[in-house]
């Protein structure tokens, strides 16, 4: 059999883009039809196709090792980009499934699904970006689609306000990122990561380079909602349609991380860049992000905001993957960061989708409103229990494994104090995660609440996310292997 052409490596992004075009065609043929089943079905098909494509290319081994280089080094398809494509496509599939019910009665649904698909395509391209230019373009493809999606509930003041905030902060951070990129271009004369890495070694302009690196770091910190660039996150997550909150806090965050992983290990590798100590910057960022995120989450009265802040805290754990580099077990710690993002993709998406489900029933958003839900909707609440405990790092879901291996890898790299901060934060996070459980299982039931409908799509999405979160415990070995392989290809 003849070897497949290299562009097959981009199959996940291509599948998503083509599906987006198909959705546009459907909307053109039958404008304003809002045929939910057709639109959601097509989108789901597209995301599943992307998932299958990413999995197939990953398993086929055609992108193993250094990976495939496309378009003169602008894009690269390797284990890491495919691994993350799997995450993005899974999150998009879950979100699509959940949106089917959530969007009932809304207008412009075709646009919604098309934007989700394009944003996911942007994430996949971001994972494959091997140049600061493609990284920035994919970044904007993702961001612009996200701004529009956050504002999707046009009639809802909160949604529009959230989008405006998100857009303003996002535009500023894009500008900062772009300025950082231009400084780096000025210093190194290249945008492709490999060129940057070559020229960065003996540049006389280390001061300028340092400013550039820090500005790029700031741009990524915004996308991953790391402290102190996290202020937009709770607002945007709270105002957005809840499936979109899930999408942003799981998918978009992972996208920010994947490009950060690649830029900082390939372009500004710490072993070549001795004058700019960005590992230290990430250590500070990780500790502050974990602590601020978890403390803020602990003081919330609103479940959705609590989840938003807790996802800030979770970003802090993943930052350990970058903060513990240079300690001798780089591939291990980076691979564990990737594994945590995969598990997080399911458990965090699931948690937000549960909130969407509860909103669909017309229940409020505070802990008190959640009282006694366990007796009304036991299966969904059991799924939520899995998400909360998994996020807290208790072994009902694979979050336990991914977190302990991440901390273990940090210890192995010699950064035991990072792991210690992580463990303390984990213990703190138990407080607010179990608070949800206390509310849904132990709280006083709201007698006037009757659950009339069981939305099939939302329910399926929540249960599917829970099942995957649990099944990843026995299957965790299948995750870590490719993750560490992918990470070791970077060094």
């Amino acid at each position: 059999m003849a070897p497949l052409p290299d562009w097959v490596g981009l199959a996940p992004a291509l599948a998503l883009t083509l599906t987006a075009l198909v959705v546009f065609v459907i909307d053109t043929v039958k404008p304003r039809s809002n045929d939910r089943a057709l639109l959601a079905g097509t989108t789901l098909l597209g995301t599943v196709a992307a998932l299958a494509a990413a999995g197939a290319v990953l398993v086929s081994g055609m992108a193993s090792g250094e990976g495939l280089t496309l378009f003169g080094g602008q894009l690269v398809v390797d284990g890491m980009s495919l691994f993350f494509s799997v995450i993005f496509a899974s999150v998009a599939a879950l979100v699509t499934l959940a949106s089917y019910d959530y969007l009932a009665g809304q207008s412009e649904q075709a646009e919604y699904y098309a934007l989700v698909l394009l944003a996911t395509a942007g994430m996949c391209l971001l994972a494959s970006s091997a140049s600061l230019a493609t990284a920035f373009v994919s970044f904007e493809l993702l961001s612009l689609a996200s701004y529009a999606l956050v504002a999707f509930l046009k009639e809802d003041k909160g949604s529009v306000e959230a989008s405006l905030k998100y857009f303003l902060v996002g535009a500023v951070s894009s500008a900062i990122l772009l300025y950082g990129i231009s400084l780096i271009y000025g210093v190194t004369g290249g945008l492709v990561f490999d060129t940057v890495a070559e020229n960065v070694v003996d540049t006389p302009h280390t001061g300028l380079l340092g400013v550039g690196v820090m500005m790029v770091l700031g741009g990524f910190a915004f996308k991953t909602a790391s402290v102190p660039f996290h202020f937009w996150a709770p607002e945007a997550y709270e105002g957005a349609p809840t499936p979109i909150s899930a999408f942003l806090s799981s998918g978009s965050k992972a996208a920010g991380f994947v490009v950060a992983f690649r830029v900082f290990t390939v372009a500004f590798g710490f072993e070549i860049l001795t004058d700019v100590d960005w590992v230290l910057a990430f250590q500070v960022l990780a500790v502050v992000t974990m602590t601020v995120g978890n403390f803020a989450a602990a003081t919330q009265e609103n479940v959705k905001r609590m989840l938003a802040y807790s996802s800030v805290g979770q970003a802090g754990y993943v930052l350990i993957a970058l903060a513990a580099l240079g300690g001798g077990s780089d591939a291990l710690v980076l691979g564990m960061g990737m594994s945590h993002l995969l598990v997080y993709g399911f458990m965090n998406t699931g948690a937000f989708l549960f909130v969407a489900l509860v909103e669909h029933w017309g229940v409020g958003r505070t802990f008190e409103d959640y009282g006694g839900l366990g007796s009304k909707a036991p299966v969904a609440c059991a799924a939520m229990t899995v998400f909360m405990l998994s996020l807290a790092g208790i072994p009902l879901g694979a979050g336990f494994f991914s977190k302990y291996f991440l901390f273990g890898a940090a210890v192995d790299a010699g950064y035991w104090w990072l792991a210690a901060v992580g463990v303390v934060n984990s213990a703190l996070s138990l407080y607010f995660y179990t608070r949800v459980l206390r509310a849904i299982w132990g709280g006083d039931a709201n007698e006037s609440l009757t659950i009339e409908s069981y939305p099939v799509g939302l329910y399926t999405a929540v249960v599917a996310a829970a099942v995957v979160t649990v099944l990843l415990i026995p299957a965790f070995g299948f995750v870590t292997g490719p993750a560490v392989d992918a990470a070791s290809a970077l060094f």
Partner: protein
Amino acid sequence: MLIELLIALCLLGAVVVFLLPDEYAPFGGFVASLFPLVTSFVLWYGFDGSGNAFLQGGQLAYETDVEWISLGQYAVNWHVGLDGISMPLVVLSTVLTSLAIVTGWTPIDRQRSGFYALLLFLEAGLVGVFSTLDFFAFLVFWEAVLIPVYLLITVWGGPRREYAAIKFFVYTNVATLVMFIGFAALVFGLGDSVTSLDLPAVTQALRAGELGSLGGVGAGTLRLAAFAAMFFGFGMKMAVVPFHTWLPDAYTESPTPVTVVLAGIVTKMGTYAMLRFNFTMLPDIVEQYAQVIALFAVVTVIYGALLALSQHDLKRIVAYSSLPSMGFVLLGLVAYTPYGLSGATFQMVSHGLLSGLLFACVGVIYSATGTRMVGDMAGLAGRMPVTAAAFVAGSFGYMGLPFMSGFMGEYFIFQGAFDSFPGSPVFTAVAMFGIVLVAGYLLFAMQRALFGEFRVDGSSTVRRAAVHDLAPLVVLIACVIVLGSAPHLIFSMIADAVGPLLGGGL
């Protein structure tokens, strides 16, 4: 594959029961618990405890060892197996879970399917703890036990349930973290001489003296620190004084079936793990600091008994009476003699049955009279003879009457502890005095609550107990007497397992 089957049956039962409508859940839960029960008896019937993987490189019964997560030194294997120490505890878990489900039929009146599903889930965690031989899998099951207990207390517990549940969760979780650090320090100290977190491999390497220094800390200090960390972690779970304060709250606020499982099996996780980790892996520390550990044991016996003596709530009396028994177990372990270790293991099983029996009695009395205060009731024996007889039998078992399981356990412990380390006769004698105190508060409670003129504050009658309320009591008494009069049923397998730890047979 039988161990996997046992765990899978518990989990499958939990899922099925969770999906059942509430009215079928109690009976459904009981039926679901019979599958693991029967499986555990099949395991027991075909048990061959002659191999000891921990020290002789042999093979444990029903051993499976397959790769799970492959990551160099962090490799996690699915490694399970049973020896004479874990086998009785697995059977105890399945038996007590089935009985606990039956004791819940009367008092649990809401969200039943969730309740029984959680009990079955808890059973899976317990069986997992007693059968895994890989540290990571052990930790998974160990932590997994926390979840159902937390939810069971927080949803179905008494008036102060949230306080008790959070206290339990925080205390035991912190204990786990400390224990984890202690064990991790040992593994890191062993460096390249172990390639995984396999418990037998770590044990053999530690016993072979391969522990190096870690981060400038010498091997000797590292051993001691790790021992202390693990002792704290497991001591918290088994409620050694002064780490016992979570226990009375958790026991008192739990509904009856949860108390039965909590007191009967969950505390045994602590004693079992302490035997497996502290005492099997670092016997030299035990020898060196025997008096210190024995002091913990004796204080737990005496102080626990005194605390029980000062209670007025029947359930709290029974709750505190767990402390002396746990103290005896610790004394047997620290003796580190054949009789001491096997007595301690026997006492784990015995105390599981006896505490289950007494808590079940308290549950029946509470649902019959509506009160648990000893001062509010008298003369119950006339109106509820079976329950009263069971309570008396259980109390006598606790006091160590011959032909009951408590006697065998305590006899072996004292026999083993008496002449084991310098000063041990004094410690043993003081601990034996604890039995007098145990007899004191139990007789006191029995006399006040059960005998004399009938009186219950607030009502002149008591609700009749149903057959399913009394059946677990009868079964438990039968078990206690059978084990007391025919201890060889489990004693021979315990001896097989304990012998190699001490480098010889019994």
